[in-house]
Every structure is written in C-alpha cells, then in structure tokens.
C-alpha cells in the first residue's frame, strides 16, 4: 500500500500543472511543518469535507421550518391559510429546539428523514440567514441603509450566497476562496480541492482555485471524464500528442486559452479517476441522490487521491415557486431529505460521519405572504430564511442564529411589522451569509487570521461563529 501510494504520488506530481506546482512549492515549508504536526497528533485519518447543497431558485423556508406552538402557528395560519399555502398543523414533524425556550416547532412533513437526523442530534437549523452588507432592522432598511446589490433578484442573490459578498458583484466564491486559503492542507492532491457535481458556478471559483466539475451518478466515477477513441498504435499516440500539444498553443487568445485550460484539467484528472468504488448505502436515483452518490464515491477514494480536505457542490433546481407551489415543493423537499439522509448514512458506513458536514444554501427565502391562491398558489422572492446543517460534528437538534426584532433567532411571523422589509413578509436577515459560512469554514480548518481574507465583510457583523459546529 505504502509503495503504491508513493508511486501514485509521483504520478500525480507529474500531471500537476506548472502553476499548481508553483503554488505547491510556495507552500512547501508550511506543508512540511503542518504534515509533521498532523502526523504527530492525529495519525493518518485527518479528513474533512464540506458539502454544499444548493436549493436553486429560492427555497420557501417558511414552509420548511414552521412554528408549531399555538401562537406561532396561529400567526403562520393567518398569513398563509386563506390562500391555501399553509401546511396542516397536524402533519408537522415536531421538533423542540432548546434555544427557543421550550417552544415546539415543526419540520415540513416531507422532511421525515431530516427529522430523524434531528432526533439523533445530527442536524441543526441556522435561522434567518440571508445576504446583508451590514446589520439591518425594518427601520434602518426602510430608511435606506446599505443593502445587498440588486436585492431580490435571483442571479444576484444566489450569487451573493455563493460569494458571501453582498456589497458588489464579486468575482470569486466563498468555496473557492476557502480553498485558496486552505489548499496547503492537501499535500500533492490528485484532484482540485473543490469538486462540483452541478456544473460551473461561482461558489467554486477562487483566485487560484479552479474546481473539478464532474457528472453525477449513474455515470461511474472512472468514466465521468473519459476520453474515447484512442488506441495504442504509433499513429494513435501521435494524434493524442497533437491534441495535447495544441492545447498549449494560441494561449494569447484569452477565450481559446481558457477553453484549453479547462480541457487540459479534464484530461489531467481523467487519468487520476481510475476506479469506481462500491458504496454501502443505496441512494435514491433522483437528481440530488445521484449527485450526492458521486460525492460519496469521491470521498471513498479520498486516500487514493490523497485528499485531506474537500469541498463539494451539488444543486437541485426549480425552487422558484411563484405558482403551483404546494405539490412541487413537497416533492423537492422529499428529494432533499431522502438524498441527504442516504448520503449521511453512507458517511457513517465509511466511518467519516464526523468528518463530513453537509449544509444547504439557496437564493433567498420566499415571501411569507403568498402569491396567488388556491391550487396555483405560490410565493415571491423573500430574504432571510432557515438553512440545514447535517453531520456528526454538528451540534444538532437546535436552532442557531442572532436575535431578531423579537429577541429570538426567528423573525416575527407577521407581515408589515417586526422583521418584514416591506408588506409581504420578506424577513430581514439577522444572520449574514458570511457568519453562516465562516462557522463552517472555521471547522473546516480556516485559520482565524485568514477569516477576513475569505470573508471580507465579516467584520460588519456580530461574531463569526454561530456555534453549531463542534
């Protein structure tokens, strides 16, 4: 095994691009010291992974986590029942977060698998999280205080959740920047620190970090980046060489050069992904299930790929329920719940449940006040909402956050007062994306000194640790 691995490392060094090489060299001193320290204290299995599950389009958090105590449910019903958007109280899956002082809350009935994880203390809820440039109240917001760029627009808000910078149009994502500043924790990695199973998006891009992007299951892991049609005869090798050599030409042309860089990276990693491991757990064959299954496979071959730290990005779309929300949202939540549970179970089977933390993000919450009514009822673009964090390193079974206008972590569930930005129940977040992300990033291994490099606006907010990670 040791021999194989050394051989493997040599190979992976050969395929590292020159820039990656240079980055590696720069970090070499640091790496050595760090590696020695790790070896002394933690042995060989110091592994951590963050898995971002992006609910694209704006998940209705108001129908994901619902008040289940009398006054709370009454407020909820007042806002949503008449138009037909309220979830029946008797169907809610009850939860009792300690931080809410004995109040009973409920999860959407389609989140039964997540409910079981809550019961095991493996899932926490971060409350009223959203894009902010500085803390806001209803009064300061309505008075014109600084707010996120293009607030309530999809691409901008989704982007700000992914960049954790809401003051302007950032060009890097927080996943990418986190990888920039923790890249040295991977020594001679065979693949990039970040892998997206959901295509290119800004979350994955750092200043130096370029993500690996692969397709979901059922494509076997060793075929996601396969180049077909090459034999071993001399003229075949010549064709292959011509293809590779051409990728290093015309680099002056920026668009061509960027296409070449991505293709070259695919060819490099293609050579590394040589096995398709077998998993213990059967995943649902849904969009999200298939993506998380591929993530689980990559985690399973982490040692082979020499990965100590990994960030994964998966995504489920179609949450933009301006209409016909109830059935569609139910089926999406069921998919989320089942896929995350299967993934969690697989991390248990692999013995890495405390090394892998899965968390949700979305564009925004939706308006508490419905859009339309009856069978086609939906909701419009909102703001602050609840997000889920799952794993054995999560201090689960509780709500986390910062006080809203009513002193608790959740906004006052009434429109046109309290925490509403306007009249439709777009709740002003009490927790910024930066605070949510920084809590995860610190657990992942980001040094305190680098916190403000990854999250440049973190200093605008009250604390950088929401406390949901061990």
């Amino acid at each position, binding site marked *: 095994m040791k021999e194989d691995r050394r051989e493997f490392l040599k190979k992976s060094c050969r395929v590292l691009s020159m820039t990656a090489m240079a980055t590696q060299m720069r970090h070499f001193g640091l790496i050595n010291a760090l590696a020695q320290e790790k070896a002394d204290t933690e042995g060989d299995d110091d592994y951590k992974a963050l898995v971002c599950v992006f609910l*694209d389009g704006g998940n209705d958090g108001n129908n994901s986590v619902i008040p289940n105590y009398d006054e709370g449910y009454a407020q909820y019903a007042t806002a949503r029942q008449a138009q037909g958007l309220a979830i029946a109280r008797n169907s809610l899956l009850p939860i009792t977060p300690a931080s809410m002082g004995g109040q009973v809350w409920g999860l959407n009935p389609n989140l039964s698998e997540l409910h079981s994880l809550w019961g095991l203390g493996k899932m926490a809820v971060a409350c009223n999280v959203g894009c902010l440039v500085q803390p806001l109240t209803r009064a300061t917001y309505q008075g014109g205080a600084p707010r996120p760029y*293009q607030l*309530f*627009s*999809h*691409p901008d808000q989704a982007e700000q959740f992914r960049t954790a910078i809401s003051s*302007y149009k950032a*060009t*890097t994502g927080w996943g*990418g920047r986190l990888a920039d500043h923790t890249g040295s924790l991977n020594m001679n990695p065979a693949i990039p620190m970040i892998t*997206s199973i959901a*295509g*290119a*998006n800004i979350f994955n891009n750092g*200043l130096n970090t*370029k993500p*690996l*992007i*692969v397709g979901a299951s059922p494509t076997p892991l060793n075929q996601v*980046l*396969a*180049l077909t*049609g*090459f*034999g071993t005869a001399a*003229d*075949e090798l*010549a*064709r292959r060489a*011509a*293809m590779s*050599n*051409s*990728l290093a*030409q*015309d680099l002056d*042309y*920026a*668009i*061509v*050069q*960027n*296409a070449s860089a*991505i*293709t070259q*990276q*695919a*060819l490099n*990693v*293609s050579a590394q992904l040589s096995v398709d491991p077998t998993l213990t757990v059967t995943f649902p064959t849904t969009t999200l299930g298939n993506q998380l299954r591929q993530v689980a496979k990559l985690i399973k071959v982490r040692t082979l790929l020499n990965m100590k730290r990994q960030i994964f990005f998966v995504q489920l*779309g*179609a949450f*933009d329920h*301006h*209409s016909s929300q109830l059935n569609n949202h139910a089926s999406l939540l069921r998919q989320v719940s089942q896929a995350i549970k299967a993934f969690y179970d697989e991390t248990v089977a692999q013995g890495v449940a405390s090394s892998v933390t899965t968390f949700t993000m979305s564009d925004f919450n939706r308006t508490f006040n*419905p*859009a*339309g009514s009856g069978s086609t009822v939906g909701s*419009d*673009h909102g703001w602050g909402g609840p997000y889920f964090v799952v794993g054995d390193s999560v201090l689960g079974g509780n709500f986390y956050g910062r006080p809203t206008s009513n002193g608790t972590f959740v906004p006052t569930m009434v429109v046109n007062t309290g925490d509403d930005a306007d009249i439709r129940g777009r709740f002003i977040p009490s927790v910024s994306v930066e605070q949510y992300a920084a809590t995860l990033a610190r657990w992942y291994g980001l040094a305190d000194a680098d916190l403000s490099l990854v999250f440049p606006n973190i200093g605008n907010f009250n604390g950088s640790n929401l406390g949901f990670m061990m």
Partner: protein
Amino acid sequence: MINVNDVCRRLRFLMLCGVTCLLCLLGSQSASALPDDAPVLISESNSTRALFTVSTGTKTRSATVIQPGRDTVVTFFITNVELLKGERANAFRADFEDSAHNRYPLQIVSLDASTSSVYALSVRLPVELGSVGDVLVRVTWRGMSSNRVRASIGFEGGKIEDDPGSVPTPMPTANISRKSKSAERADLPWTGDRVRFLEQATFGPNAALEIRVRRIGYSTWIEEQMDEQIYESYVYPNYPFFPITPSPTCDGNTLPPDSPATCFRDNYTMYPLQNWFYKEALYNDRQQLRRRVSWALGQIFVTSGRVNSQPSQMMPYIQTLDRNAFGNFRRLLKEMTLNPAMGTYLDMAISTAQNPNENYAREILQLFTIGLDLLNQDGTPVVDGQGNPLPSYNQTTINNFTKIFTGWTYCNQGCTSSQPGVINYRDPMIPNPANHDTSSKTLLNYSGATPVIPAGLTPEQDLEAALNNIFYHPNVGPFIGKLLIQQLVTSNPTPAYVGRVAAVFNNNGRGDRGDLKAVVRAILLDPEARGNIKTDPVYGKLREPVLFVTNVLRPFNPTANNNIGVPASCSGLSDGAINAITQPLDQDVFSPPSVFNYYPMDYVIPNTPLAGPEFGIFSTGTALKRPNFVNQMGPPNSSGATGILAVTGAASNTPCGTRIDLTRLEALAASDSTGVALVDTLNREMMHGALSSPVRNEVLNAVQSVQSTNSVKRARTAFYLIATLSQYQVQR
C-alpha cells in the same frame, strides 16, 4: 489636443520624425506580420520603444520611463485607423504585458486626432501596476491587435522579448490614407471572412452557402434570407393539446403500455420540437439567418419545456420567435408577454389584482429589456461618484409593474384554438377585467417618459402603456444589442460596437425604433464583425453545444445513417435526433433549467475580467464530451459504423440516425501524401483559414504519422483534430 509636431520637438525626435520609414511599417517587405487592417502603434524610429508622453495632474512631459501611479496618464500614438463618424475612445482597448506575462488592461481616457492620420490615445495605468520594468503595449480596435511596442514602468530593463518579427514603426511623415475596406469583399475567389460571416449568421458554413454569399455578397444574402416568408422547411410539429395529467396509456410508464408506444414522448416531451429544430438547422439553408436569430432571441426571452412540457405548448412560443425575428422589438415584446407558454412559465396567467404575482414583472425588466443597471448608449454602466453602477429600477417599480400585468389569462373559450378541457396555448392570452388592478401605477422614469399611469384604465390600455414605458427606456437598445452581439459574434464587444448597434435599434434610419432587421444587419456588417481574421486577444465566443454540433455536421453533408439501410420514410435525411448529444453538454434544447437560460448571459470566465456566457456550461465535466462526439461521428481508430446509429422499430428515438460524409476528405488524403491539401482544406472550411502555424504543424504531423495508404484514417485524424481544437470550440 496633443500636437504630434510638438511631441516630436519635445522628444528631440525632429530628425527621426523626418525619416520616411512608413514603408517598413505598412510595406510588403515582411517587416511586420501585421494584417493591413490592424492599427499600428508608433514607436521610436530606430527601436521598438513606444513614442509617448506622460501626464500627471496638469503637467504633460516627455520621459523615457513611466512612473506608476494612480494619476499617471500615458499618451501613445496610433495610425492606420480610419474612424467612422462617432467612433471614439470606446472603440479601443489597450493592455500591458510585463516580463512575468501578467496582463494589465488599461483604462482608455481619451482619443484625440493629432494629424489626419495619427491619433493620440491616452490611457490610465492600473492601480495594481508596480515598477515592473519593460512592458509590451498593445492597442486593439475592431477586433484587430496592433503591433506591440515597448515601454518602461518604473525602470528601464527587464526580461521581456519583443514579439517575433517586431520592427520599428515610426511616425509617418505624410498623411497616409488607410486602404478603405468595405464589408463587401465577397466576390474574391476565397476569403476567410465569408466563412467567418457564415459562422455568425448560420448554424455552420457549408459549400452551398459559401458559394451563394460569394455570388451575391453579404448585404444581398442577408436581404434574401430576410425576405423569405416561409419560415420552415419541415412543417412545425403541430400536436394536439393533451390533458395536464397524462392518461395511463400515455404516461411513459410500461404498465399499462402506452398506445401508441410513442404517445408520451411525442406529446409530453420536447422530443418532436428538438428533432424539428435540428433538421431545420441542418437542412433549411434558406432560413439559416432567421433560425439563428430566433434561437438567439429564445435565449433572451426564455421559457422552458421543463414547465410547458407538451410540445404543443411550446410550439406557439417558437413560432412567435420565428415570426418576429426580423420584425419590431415592440411587437415581439407584446406577443411574448401574451404568449401562453410565457404566461405559464412566469405566472402572468395567474396573476390577479387579488393575488398578484411579481414573477413576470421582474423578469421582463431584468432579462428581456433593460437589465439591472442603468446603461450608457454604448452598453457600459452609468456609475455614481464612487464608481458604483446605478440600478435601473427597484422593488417599488416591480410592485407597480406587477399590478399592471394583472388580469390576463388563457383563452379557453371562444378563441380559434379553444377546446374544452385543455389550456389554449395557441391564441394569445386575453384580459379578464375583473381580475385587473385598476389603481394608478408609477412605472419607469426617464427623460421623455410618462411614468404615472392613471387609475381606471382597461387591462389592454395598461398593458400598452407599460410596454411602451419599457420599450422607450434608453437601456433597451444597448441591452438587447449587446446580448444579440454576444449570441452571434463575440462575447466581449467593444463599447463602440454596442453603441453602433444600439443607435440602429434606436433609429433604423427611417425613424423607427426596435427594427430587428436593421439591428441584425448592423451586427453582422459591423467592421468589428467583419474581416478575414481577428487578432484581438479577447475576440470571439465559445461555441455553445448546439452551435458546436451543427458546425461540425453541416460542412459534411449530414444524412440519415445507413447502418441498417435507410428507411424510405427518412428520405435520406437525418431524423434530427441530436439532442441526445447536446443534453449531456448541458444544452437540452427548449428545456433550459431556468429563466436564466442554459447559461447566464453575464457569466464571467473565472479569474478574468472577460464575459464568457457559454463558459457557464463548459467545464471539466462537459469538455471531453465534445471530442467524444467528434469521435462518434468519424472515429479515426475504427473502421466500424459511425455517427448516431439508426435503430429500427416503431418507437425508436433514432429511426434514421445521423451520419456525415468524409469521403471528399479521403480523396484529398489519397491525392496528396503530404497531408497538406487535407489539412488546408479543413483549415479553410472549418477554421476560416485562421489555424495558427504551430497548430497546423501539430495536425500535419499527426496526419503524416498515419500510413499514407490509409486515406480513411488520415481524413478522420485530421477531421478529429481540427474539430476538437480549442481554436475550433471558439468562434473567432
């Protein structure tokens, strides 16, 4: 204004200025490899050092070294440019490259005529630029890169080599008149520009179109395509409306079996439309331009088969795009607003005064017409004192537009296509005054606008007022103009190019606003679009999967596959079942994942300042599927059946299959054992002759490594390599 003679005097270049050296600049003596339509940066007479002046604050002086600093403005001198009326500094870009090969884009400050043939271009140094020693300076204009001249930042020296073949390009002594180049050079025996033009205006060049354009020229060809009144070669698939919930025998599940077996596929999926689309793209040469523009507009006005899952629901939307591709934008806007597929997709069909839905109100502004930021007429954002863009509307604006779009729904009774029990997706939506919010609304405010719409108007009156309010917003020209340029020509047009197209949108020359014919003409005939070769480093666009695939197929006579013998019903043609190739490349035709299209139009290539919309779906995960497709169509390492195979059976998704014919390439390979004829032919037909010489050598080497008697493998090797090049993935 800076007088060149003063500069020369000050720089003690009098003597040098007197030297007639223009010939070595523009002459034929191989002195410079610069194409004759490229701008020329002026150097000292006896070296490749730039001629320049430096200003800090109000002082302008000569210097040999430029000291970096926020206030430093450097003026360079350029010639061999001939400006159109109104063409200004925003037609130019400039950059420095230092010895570490870092590129610094420079902010253009001004452009002044020095003499009738020399212009002074002033640039501001980037804040992050330190004392890096010698740099190479470049200017680009209309997609053409200048020669690069040397300048010293902070100190003289450093290890940056001149470009190969670089020669001094001193100040011309006489006024030179740049050879005027008309866009019409189509009559020449062969020019790369004809193929380039077809890459922009069609789904891919082929021999027939190339000959047609050569005979009649660009303008006439454009008119010919625009005049054609029958929009399709293959009849629009016109399926009946089906119930929202499929019946058990038409639900795609095996038990009970569907009847017919294709019931679900043909009535509840985009399959028939996708096949139709690809057949049109492959075979309808008379409507290439309309189809390409319609396809581009459909990526701006997005709806999706993911919501409107029946082909009968999406077909009227596609017909609306086709019908208006060369019509007026205002009419397109209205027909799109009232299109039932759009009404479903963005919820206008259910938005009522009692229960308003803001989805359509938001996206019509953000995506279809004016965008998020206030724009100058050249498409650059209007900024405040701190350099921040100004939003073009806010949530209150959206709330008001939401009100104005209430009260419209499907015409399920009494219209031509109304049928009991199904939703009418063919006729435009109709008003239901009872559901319309009749309160007063305040819409977009801009010079000349009447933003306040009084209370009590009918839904129709409100709609017309709202669409006019949007249509006349000054953002529409630059916003739509730039998106169409990005779809057809290049991802990073100069502001000047956007400005020229926006001006035509604003006024087609006869006082009409929104004339899409004129806009398309302006885009395709612009000097930034035309030319045999473009050398600006940021020119071009990554081909999206659909365009990549159709460009690979169209030059090689795509037909039905003959692996099972061609069924007569195929008439020898491909069935168009090609979406199976592009769907895994993240372009599932007519089923984009969201209203933000297959890829976001504002996607920025990571770690660059460059727009690259198509890079939103080009990743390690999709990149290798492109060469794998090329291998499928003509595998060099196999002599077996190629292409998308035809499969027999009534329910087959590929009853005819698709193949291409490379026999003419094989003949070329057989006729010339050097491989040169083969490679150069592909270079002309697929690369408009722009293959760089190192890459040409790579391809040639690989071809020559195949036994010369194996002309099939030689042909396929050359085809594979050209079609998989990054240079081919990018339309330049």
